[in-house]
């Protein structure tokens, strides 16, 4: 027990001491009054960030400007619904100062065909693998699969084209084919969808899964009817982003589908694709204008898919 007198003394000394040290600190701050310099430093930093940010986005703006300036004049009805012109037509048009006739209908249809086939191959497989990885966190086999998925993501696309060439072009279709291109694109899509599926599944509260189990719902139905619908937006975003990722792939298609001057829906025949056409137009001095318009189209298409993906993920989150 302390006497009241003692505790009064203690409180007094404590107060005085605190007061003293506060005065001391105040003096220190006054001495180093450099708020002006600090403010300037802060402004300098902010300015640097703004300049660097502008530098970063300027290439994007320049690309869009360049594509619009050079590609827009070729965009018309025929561009979407007619196949690519032959050299003579293009040369005549260029010589007469007209816009080049024809369009990229063979490329658009070919790209759509191959993306659809690639999706049909890749989406079910990668959704299942993604769910498998989610359900087996921390298990050895799942970790191995996850590691291999990461490696697959790092394989250059041209190598995948070579593999599809050996497996499909030589092995199955005995010639260049849309199927071979689709397989190459599907392999590219796999790791992207697998990882996004696993991440999406991790975001779904475990209580939702338990609610299904507690109602006596069998495991496969919990996955199909509870988990997949609950994670629909995330799964959809991953799928759309993977599609937009492979839309512009050129190298694997050069080795597998070759290209075609006509609209083709037969998956065992050579088929054109928008990026392939860009390459073909680039190699033909008379068709330079079409390079720009095709590029503009491809970029707009990919951008739209990305925006849709973002909208979906925002709407459901």
């Amino acid at each position, binding site marked *: 027990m302390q006497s009241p007198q003692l505790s009064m003394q203690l409180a007094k000394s404590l107060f005085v001491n605190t007061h003293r040290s506060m005065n001391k600190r105040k003096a220190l701050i006054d001495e180093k009054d450099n708020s002006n310099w600090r403010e300037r430093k802060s402004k300098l930093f902010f300015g640097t960030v703004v300049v660097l940010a502008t530098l970063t986005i300027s290439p994007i703006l320049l690309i869009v400007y360049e594509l619009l300036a050079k590609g827009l004049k070729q965009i018309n009805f025929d561009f979407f619904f007619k196949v690519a012109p032959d050299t003579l037509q293009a040369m005549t048009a260029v010589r007469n100062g007209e816009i080049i006739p024809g369009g990229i209908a063979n490329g658009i249809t070919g790209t759509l065909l191959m993306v659809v086939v690639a999706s049909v191959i890749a989406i079910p497989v990668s959704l299942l693998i993604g769910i498998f990885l989610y359900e087996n966190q921390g298990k050895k086999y799942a970790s191995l699969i996850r590691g291999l998925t990461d490696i697959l993501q790092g394989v250059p696309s041209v190598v995948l084209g070579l593999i599809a060439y050996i497996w499909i072009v030589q092995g199955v279709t005995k010639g260049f084919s849309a199927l071979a291109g689709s397989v190459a694109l599907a392999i590219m899509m796999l790791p992207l969808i697998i990882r996004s599926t696993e991440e999406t599944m991790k975001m779904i*509260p475990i*209580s*939702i*899964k*338990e*609610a*299904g*189990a*507690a*109602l*006596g*719902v*069998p495991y496969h*139905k*919990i996955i199909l*009817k*509870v988990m997949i*619908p*609950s994670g*629909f937006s995330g799964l959809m975003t991953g799928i759309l982003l993977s599609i937009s990722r492979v839309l512009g792939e050129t190298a694997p298609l050069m080795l597998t589908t070759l290209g075609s001057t006509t609209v083709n829906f037969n998956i065992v025949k050579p088929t054109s694709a928008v990026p392939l056409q860009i390459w073909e137009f680039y190699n033909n001095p008379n068709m330079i204008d079409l390079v720009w318009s095709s590029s503009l189209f491809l970029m707009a298409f990919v951008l739209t898919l990305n925006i849709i993906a973002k909208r979906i993920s925002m709407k459901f989150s």
Partner: protein
Amino acid sequence: MNDKILQISNPVLSIIDLSISYGEDKYAVKNVSADVKRNAITAIMGPSGCGKSTLLRAINRMHELYPNIHTKGEIKLNEESIYDMSTTKLRRKIGMVFQRPNPFPTMSIYENVIAGYSLNGSKLKKSEKDEIVESSLTDVGLLDEVKDSLNKKGNFLSGGQQQRLCIARTLAFKPDVILMDEPTSALDPLSTAKIEDLLVELKAHYSIILVTHNMSQAARISDNAMFMYLGELVEYDKTKKMFTNPKDSRTEGYLTGKFG
């Protein structure tokens, strides 16, 4: 015979010498034997980590969802071993309500109530579905509050309403037993009171096992109470008796707030 364990005739559920371990020798539940009274609320109390949730989840075999869990002993529902039934059949007879309300986010209120049927692929006529939804929602006192928005998603409901929706989803099967894992711990006092009143009404038709962290809740609504400590069933008695005259010093310690 252990005089600290209440004897019950014609029990709805019998737990016989049940032990549950995580991994090789980490026991969450140790040699628990208890009978559960029909049409009554049985509370399971105890400090966190005492094994009460694990015991509850063993009753509808939910704990089997997680790996490395070993179960020994027997649980009988109406004299029939739950290990002889498929989990699908068992979980229709023993429903479960969770700590946090967990309606299916992609389904409407109507679909949530009949989810147990639709997810299991039962083909019901529209009129049968309507009847189930109406009676289940009436039972939980939610029908008047949501009858104009049956086709809306359950997200806009308050936490208490969502929890009652989850109870309705469980009632849709007309289960024998309803397991409740701290069903009010995520709710405000008003919603809690509503759920407690509901449970007291429901016990006329259902047998309820309620895990609760909240001693006063157990005292308010339960008929019988179990006290678990470190995986053991320390004491099981009529609630009134246990709260006024506990037989075990550990129960007394917990109820008087010395630990837990």
